[in-house]
């Protein structure tokens, strides 16, 4: 599984055209299971999921609600923990150690964008973006400078001092994306990022993701039910009932 795509050089392998290799694996999942125990009965959200994602890839995870796609994303982002199985992000086990280490992982190695309510309402756009940087204890001046640059990159250079209440839904999501990138994580994870937006704003967000993947070579894993958006991404993983039922990369790389 790990070696399948190692020696392949396909024109559509990744958006950025990078060759995949063992050291460039952003995500490695092996036989991941998640079971929720709720009193008398238990719910199997993930029933043995396995896949890998190379650095620089842009992957869409699609499926009906209840398919386990959000659960998978939460586990990859270390917001939820697996019941069993192997998870590695950027070569690291997110769940090793205490809450300290897990929090450190969330801060440094992944950036998470939720569908809504991503931002702290009492802080303006710039302050929201720097927050993960401040948490990591990096030099404040450098963090602010980088935040300013990121906000300009997502098209909000003129709105840095605005509070979330003064920003539109689309603008809020762009601030959330900028924040997710402040600590240069291995992965940018997004759970239905355009789900609450109208079609025009949604399209803007989709275009932004494409730009970031192309220009910054950011590895993307995006859960979406928007089929159009999913098809613009070079790789799609489809899930149903806690299992992967289709993976466009597997289709490409299988001999």
């Amino acid at each position, binding site marked *: 599984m790990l070696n399948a795509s190692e020696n392949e050089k396909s024109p559509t392998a990744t958006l950025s055209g990078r060759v995949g290799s063992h050291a460039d694996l952003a995500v490695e999942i092996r036989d991941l299971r998640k079971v929720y125990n709720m009193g008398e009965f238990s719910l199997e959200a993930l029933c043995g999921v396995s896949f890998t994602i190379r650095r620089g890839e842009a992957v869409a995870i699609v499926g009906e609600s209840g398919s386990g796609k959000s659960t998978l994303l939460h586990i990859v982002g270390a917001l939820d923990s697996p019941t069993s199985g192997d998870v590695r992000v950027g070569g690291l086990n997110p769940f090793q150690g205490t809450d*300290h280490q897990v*929090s450190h992982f969330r*801060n440094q190695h992944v950036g998470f964008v939720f569908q809504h*309510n991503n931002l702290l309402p009492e*802080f303006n756009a710039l302050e929201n973006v720097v927050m*993960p940087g401040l948490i990591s204890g990096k030099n404040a001046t450098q963090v602010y400078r980088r935040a300013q640059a990121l906000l300009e990159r997502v098209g909000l250079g003129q709105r840095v001092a605005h509070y979330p209440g003064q920003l539109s839904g689309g603008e809020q999501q762009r601030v959330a994306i900028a924040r997710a990138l402040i600590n240069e994580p291995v992965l940018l994870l997004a759970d239905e990022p355009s789900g609450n937006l109208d079609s025009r704003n949604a399209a803007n967000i989709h275009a932004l993701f494409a730009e970031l993947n192309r220009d910054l070579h950011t590895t993307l894993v995006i859960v979406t039910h928007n089929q159009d958006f999913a098809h613009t991404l070079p790789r799609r993983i489809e899930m149903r009932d806690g299992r992967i039922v289709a993976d466009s990369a597997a289709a490409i790389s299988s001999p």
Partner: protein
Amino acid sequence: MAHDPTPLRPGLAAILFLLKRYLFSSWTARKRKSQAAFGVALPVVGIAVGVCAFTVVLSVMGGFVQGLKKRLLGVEPHIEVVVREGFGRIPAQAELLRRLPQLSNQIVSVSPFIKSDVIVQSSRKPMTALLWGVDTQNAEEVMRFNSYFLNSDSRFSELAEDAEAETSLQDESQAGGTFPTLFAGEKLLNVLDSSVGDRLTLISTQPDEGLGGFAPTQQPVVVAGAFHTGSMTHDSKVIFARLELVQKFMDAPGEWSGIQVALREPLEAETVALQLNEALKADGLRAKPWTESNKALLKALRLERWGMSFVLYMVILVGCFSITITLVLAVRRKAREMAILRSIGLRRVDLGLLYLLKGGIIGLVGVVLGLGFGLLLLQVVSKIPLSIIEDAYPGHGLPVLVSWSDVISVSLGSLLLSVVAAIWPALEVMRIDPVETLSDRAA
């Protein structure tokens, strides 16, 4: 595969940033944030009220008790060094007089004395009295009696000299000669129907083994002056004479009843007495502070102060309850934001720390405001006379004595309590599950 190291205290800058914004921005913001401002102000006021009440009430109480103690002290000796067990006399030791002042820097002066019950007889009638032999050289230094003498020129040193009598007793044949002098209380002289310059006879109450059996010693004396202290026991009972005369009269040549000690701060008598006791144990002596005879009242006053402190601490405790409630509500209201902070890597303990600090700052501001306002109020109350207590303290305001150790302990105590009050909210916020909170579609 290596696991990269975790920095030690990375979140501190973030915590302080969050703290500053959450506590203070609610003051500068508008619309719904005014509720948040009110929410922070209320517990602050609660603590401030408690600390203010504590400071004012205890200081006024302290002032009152100090005034009372001064009245009780009156003309009593600050400390008497007497025999440790029983009521016997001690050997006269000049060396002890030299050693005592070195035992404490509170000691201003020392003077030996000898006391005995005596019967004093004038031409009219006999009366029981207390004969008090003093060291004419340094008695004044220790007793500060000059202001009580009716004749402002009277001094204890006069007792060193004999004097002539201006009148003689009925049954006396001799008209001339000099007699040992004494000072007597004004009321005693009234009862004896005597005045300054009159002759009196001291009659000892101790049996004197003579040839024929019991024959009490008699000593003719003359009244050199009178005094009025305002204390009944002194004015109607006490007679001062020189130490050597009383020793001879009592047939106790090398003995004292004790040594009187004057202190810089008479209200510190108990503390100094404890110090002295350590050193005096070996000599078979002890130091008796003036408070010993007023134990019951002073104990009651002390108990009252403790009771009052307790009640006022309860007020502060209630103020802390409001901190707990305010912060718990804040946790509920801000659960989503706390979940976001967790998702971007803020550690669980740092979130808890954030809330503990919130409690601490609310307490700190409350304490500062309460102390400031309390001390201001005390200034006003001590300077401006109030009609209610006009007759008790005419002309000036309430007596105030600020106990700084109490003020410091209530400040630190309130601060500690306000942090403790934040523990439950901190535990609540640490319980937040980011996934559960952020997946909630009801936003």
